[in-house]
């Protein structure tokens, strides 16, 4: 048995869903990072995605969904939905530009034996992008993309405690752009992306929070994929990397410049399947 396979077994074979960036590009503007005038370099973007794919493949099993023409943001699979155990809750996208992704993701998950459970249509919810587990607590962001009303529905579907936190900085429009829980109960975050109540609620439910400096947060440093002790994150956060290394994490910084132009990075490009096992 080779070392990589052994490592995967030890990690209980975490599975992720990615979407190749065949049709990726800045074709509309739905967040402050996007500018049609500032296009992503296609070849560079593809190279960056390949690096991400290669890095993750060493850490977990990577599944791919076929990209679709006309859906440039489908590459950001974190917004496909939220997977817990064998249950998949598809997103209801706020922007019509992304709404077309939903049926492809739902179909793929159903074909792979996930039980698809739908939210009411009128509730906006953008999947793992706005829903991250810190141990058994599900932290959910709201206002820019997801509605707080969707959190209540998610809590009922998953029968877990949901901490709803309001996002107040439009640059950090999804929870996974400013908050990243760690398996030891701690996490790292950019506090000023939250209102004071959100900050208090997070502090009350997490131990050992690392505050990310504003200049590092602007490099999407919080948009990181955590697989056990390995953390895959965008380049440009030496202070954060050092803090994480002190806590015994291995960091894998990657260049993500072409995806940051669309307001996404490592975490946005991935969805855990599942993010955690079903809650008893």
């Amino acid at each position, binding site marked *: 048995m080779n070392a990589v396979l052994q490592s995967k077994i030890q990690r209980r074979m975490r599975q992720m869903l990615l979407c190749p960036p065949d049709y990726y590009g800045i074709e509309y503007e739905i967040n402050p990072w996007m500018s049609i005038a500032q296009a992503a370099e296609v070849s560079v973007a593809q190279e960056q995605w390949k690096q991400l794919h290669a890095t993750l493949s060493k850490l977990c099993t990577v599944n791919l969904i076929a990209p679709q023409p006309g859906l440039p943001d489908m590459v950001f699979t974190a917004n496909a939905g939220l997977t817990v155990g064998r249950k998949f809750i598809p997103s209801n996208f706020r922007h019509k530009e992304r709404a077309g992704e939903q049926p492809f993701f739902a179909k793929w998950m159903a074909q792979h034996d996930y039980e698809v459970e739908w939210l009411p249509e009128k509730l906006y919810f953008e999947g793992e992008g706005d829903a991250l587990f810190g141990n058994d607590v599900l932290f959910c962001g709201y206002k820019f993309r997801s509605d*707080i009303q969707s959190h*209540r529905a998610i809590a009922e579907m998953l029968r877990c*405690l949901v*901490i*709803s*936190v309001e996002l107040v900085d439009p640059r950090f429009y999804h929870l996974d752009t400013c908050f990243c829980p760690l398996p030891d109960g701690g996490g790292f975050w950019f506090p000023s992306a939250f209102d004071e*109540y959100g900050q*208090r*609620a997070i502090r009350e439910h997490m131990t050992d929070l690392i505050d990310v400096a504003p200049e590092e947060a602007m490099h999407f440093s919080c948009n990181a994929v955590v697989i056990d002790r390995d953390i895959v994150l965008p380049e440009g956060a030496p202070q954060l990397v050092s803090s994480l290394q002190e806590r015994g994490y291995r960091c894998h910084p990657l260049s993500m410049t072409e995806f940051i132009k669309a307001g996404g990075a490592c975490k946005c490009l991935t969805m855990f399947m599942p993010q955690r096992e079903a809650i008893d």
Partner: protein
Amino acid sequence: MFSETIELRGHIIDSLILPKVLDQILTHGGNFKITEVQIGRKRADQSFARIEVSTETGEALDELILRLRQQGAEVIERANAQVVAAPADGVFPSEFYVTTNQQTFVRVDGKEIEVTPGIINSAIAVDQKKETARAVKFFDVKKGDAIVVGHQGIRVVPVQRTTTRTDPFQFINNIVDAEEPKSAIIREIAEELRRARSAGGKIAVVAGPAIVRTGAGGYLVRLIEGKYIDRLFTGNAFAAYDVERALFGTSLGLNPDVAIVRGGHENQLRAINTIREAGGIARAVHEKILMSGIMHASVQHDVDIVLIGAIGDEGPIPGVTTDVIECEKILREKLRDVTHVILLATLRYSLAIGAFLANNVKTVCVDIDRTAVERAVERQPLQSIGLVTDVEPFLRELADNLATR
């Protein structure tokens, strides 16, 4: 005041959504009342809160509700009040809503309008253009007036009992019986009247003839001289006894100062005749025909005298209103700005007054008959004090208390 009811559901305690919503209401100048709250027992259990949100203006409410919706607040849609045109002058449509004496709001075109004045046993006439809602009696209503029917779209706000002991009207609230001590409560009442006088309140006394007949008139005069009475509601008999006492030393032939009866009933008629001859109480005072007594003091100290007639009245004395409908109109008008009412030994008049008192008027009722006190006090359950006693010792002690400072 404008209000809406919102509901919050979910993990609103752990997420601090409930405190955030309450803070937002207050920081945006609103007020809230939590009418129901259920806290989840287990970790995954969701909680629930129903909150009444109110603001001074409709615009402020709309803006606030918009903010609260972003925090997950769901607004409970309330129906508008239903109105039907009055079928004829003086006739309400069937099923018309009958007011209580609690503060009442009706919802018209999605807006809440307060019903004024806040008086009991009336219908509600709505003017959609002017956005007003009036409590109307039979004599007010004209054919075609829009009258509220049923209970939909009506919100009644009961007076809240305070939790502090600063207001004697809200913590005593019981009838002090004949055999119970009264000095402490009379001291509290005196203190309240002092506060009312300095705060610009309007104090009304509703006086029964027993005050004059028991010889307590002098104490009432002291209250008038001390500026503790702004308006005096009484009847023809009271005025006649008072004038008789001033002119002849008797009231209905009795002299309260001596034990032996002198004079007779004729004194009352002679007194009334004197006032009629003078052209009224005020003129009798100005012409120095009437030189003492309660009526005299009232004229001298600009107390507004409201005289209401009754069957069996002799005279009447000029200035007494004898048309009952006219009397009701006068009572409603003259009680509109009153903040404190002292009902002294007159059941019939007390009940009539009660029909026009807003629920926030503080009321003291003194009568020797417990049933009379009970009936007067039950109209103002959270704002009244009843004392079962002869009116003379009450007034004496009150006057003494008010004279001490």
